[in-house]
């Protein structure tokens, strides 16, 4: 039986590479345009990717456990639509927010039940709910937009921490990132995710409650999507059914580029955060330098390929090395 090794150490190579690339991207960015390394620009840069960053946190947990949630962006759209509908119907904001978060959790619960109770692959389930939740978003709000949110709330999405250039949502992200990192890397729950992702059968034999864990992961993913929906809605002061269309691809790209194995069992929060910012920095710097859209798309595409290729190559090198070690020790492969 293969014992999941300490993931932080085994991935140090790829993580260091990502963080190194972030530094390189920052350096190149500052060369491309003099406005790149200024407070306001870095502030905008981070503000632009806060929803991706938020959802990437829970996506990391989900993918480490060898599952996937493709319905996150549709959940954002559906939750944004609900928030808009409730506000337009004069619901008090705290109540509307609570209902929005509850809807997200419910959407996640539905995904989780289909995966754990019916044993369906999460890829198939969440492709289905990707369409379903977007459809429900349009059913809720149609092609209307709700925009008249009070400034107090929109400022939470749009504003900066007083006296700094730090967008308020980034503070929320930082707190959630620390919590997620601690949960994944320093708790039994986190270790159980690696175990499930690396070898579900073994995890079951080891007495881990695989179903319950997975159900919880999907609920968390839905809940985080709902939170991202609130941020998105306030940041743009616009609740629309088509909010965040396509965001799931950006999230998954960041998670994979961050070194999380699509087959589960490997990955770390810091790598994923590095990847989110790496993609954001590259796009911001290239846009600032007036690089045409086509090039931007090509670069993003190449990054996506790198995101699959890089960690895979790293893993392959590692496996062959482990095999060699195992063989030299005379153990089974």
């Amino acid at each position, binding site marked *: 039986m293969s014992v999941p090794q300490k993931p932080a150490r085994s991935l140090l190579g790829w993580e260091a590479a990502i963080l190194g690339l972030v530094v390189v991207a920052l350096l190149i960015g500052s060369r491309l345009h003099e406005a*790149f390394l200024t407070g306001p620009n870095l502030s*905008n840069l981070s503000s632009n990717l806060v929803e991706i960053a938020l959802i990437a946190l829970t996506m990391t947990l989900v993918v480490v456990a060898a599952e996937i949630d493709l319905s996150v962006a549709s959940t954002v759209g559906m939750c944004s639509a609900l928030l808009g509908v409730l506000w337009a119907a004069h619901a008090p904001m705290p109540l509307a927010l609570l209902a929005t978060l509850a809807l997200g959790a419910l959407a996640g619960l539905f995904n989780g039940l289909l995966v754990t109770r019916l044993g369906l692959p999460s890829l198939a389930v969440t492709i289905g709910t990707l369409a379903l939740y977007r459809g429900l978003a349009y059913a809720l709000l149609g092609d209307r937009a709700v925009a008249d949110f009070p400034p107090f709330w929109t400022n939470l999405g749009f504003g900066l921490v007083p006296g700094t250039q730090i967008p308020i949502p980034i503070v929320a992200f930082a707190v959630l990132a620390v919590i997620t990192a601690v949960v994944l890397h320093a708790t039994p729950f986190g270790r159980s995710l690696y175990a499930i992702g690396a070898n579900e059968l073994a995890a079951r034999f080891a007495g881990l409650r695989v179903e319950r864990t997975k159900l919880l992961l999907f609920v968390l993913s839905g809940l985080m999507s709902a939170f991202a929906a609130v941020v998105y809605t306030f940041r743009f002061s616009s609740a629309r059914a088509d909010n965040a269309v396509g965001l799931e691809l950006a999230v998954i790209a960041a998670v994979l580029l961050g070194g999380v194995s699509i087959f589960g069992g490997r990955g770390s929060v810091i790598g994923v955060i590095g990847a989110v910012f790496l993609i954001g920095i590259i796009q911001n710097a290239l846009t600032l330098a*007036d690089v045409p*859209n086509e090039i931007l798309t090509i670069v993003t595409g190449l990054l996506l390929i790198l995101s699959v290729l890089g960690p895979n190559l790293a893993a392959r090198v590692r496996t062959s090395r482990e095999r060699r070690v195992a063989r030299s020790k005379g153990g089974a492969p």
Partner: protein
Amino acid sequence: MKNHKILLAALALSLGAAALAQGGIQKGITIAFLPKQVNNPYFATAWKGGQAAIKEFAGIGKQVGPSDAGASSQVSYINTLLAQRQKAIVVSASDQNALVPYLKRAMQQGVKVVTYDSDVAPDGRNVFVSQADNDTIGRDEVKILAKQIGYKGEIAILSATPNATNQNAWIKVMQDELKKPAYKDMKLVKIAYGNDDDQKSFTEMQGLMQAYPNLKGVISPTTVGISAAARYLSTSPYKGKVMLTGLGTPNQMREFVKNGTVQGFALWNPEDLGYLASYAAAALVSGQITGKEGQKFKAGKLGERTIGKNGVVILGPLTVFDKSNIDKFSF
């Protein structure tokens, strides 16, 4: 002493003149166009006009923008243009509200904001350059059809959905225009609805011809309706006998104009729209206007323009596309 003052005034004048290009516009103004979507023929055409204007007043222009029309993709571009210290942003908004806080921030930092084609809430921009007002669109449509049928005969309207706000506003104006004595021999017999669905518009057009055999002309003020109606007419015995006009784009209507199904149809000219937007931006940056109602500015070949209510400048009458000019347009 007096001489001194005159001398100073002359010096100031000549210095001022040196910094100003033709029409009192500063030279070297940086203007960025931000369409809903780049690589979209409509916006590419508008940018052609915008660029031509920028060249005329010796500014520095560029067009940037997202390749998807998502509601929020434009925001990161606004921030980027702000970081690049552009003097003016000319934007067609994908979302009426999502851009407003960011555009407000840009204006606070001295950037002039012009919307074209698609507006934002008025406090998010200085000037909106509107393609045409409801009144113009409704009346122009009736005038075009009246000419085509010789001011005589039964006519119908093929609209989008029964509750489409813009369509209904236009139809109301059309009915009002038809009350004028010049149209006393024309009779509006039916308003049909194709729901902006190609198939439904096609069958509605078919139904109109069966129900009203004496029909002489149809106005379809929707791009989906007019092309479906033209397709039906082009293969029917009514081709060239029943006139069809409305709002359409040259690319979708070209074959029907060339094969004689449609004599002429209308739309605003996006090239002129971009041209006017550029001049509005330049006039704002040069301090000629601030966006208040009643202010005037010169817009090159389009002549003098006046800002209307809520900072709206209207491009003017529709452009009629027919055999003589349709090949000049691609959108």
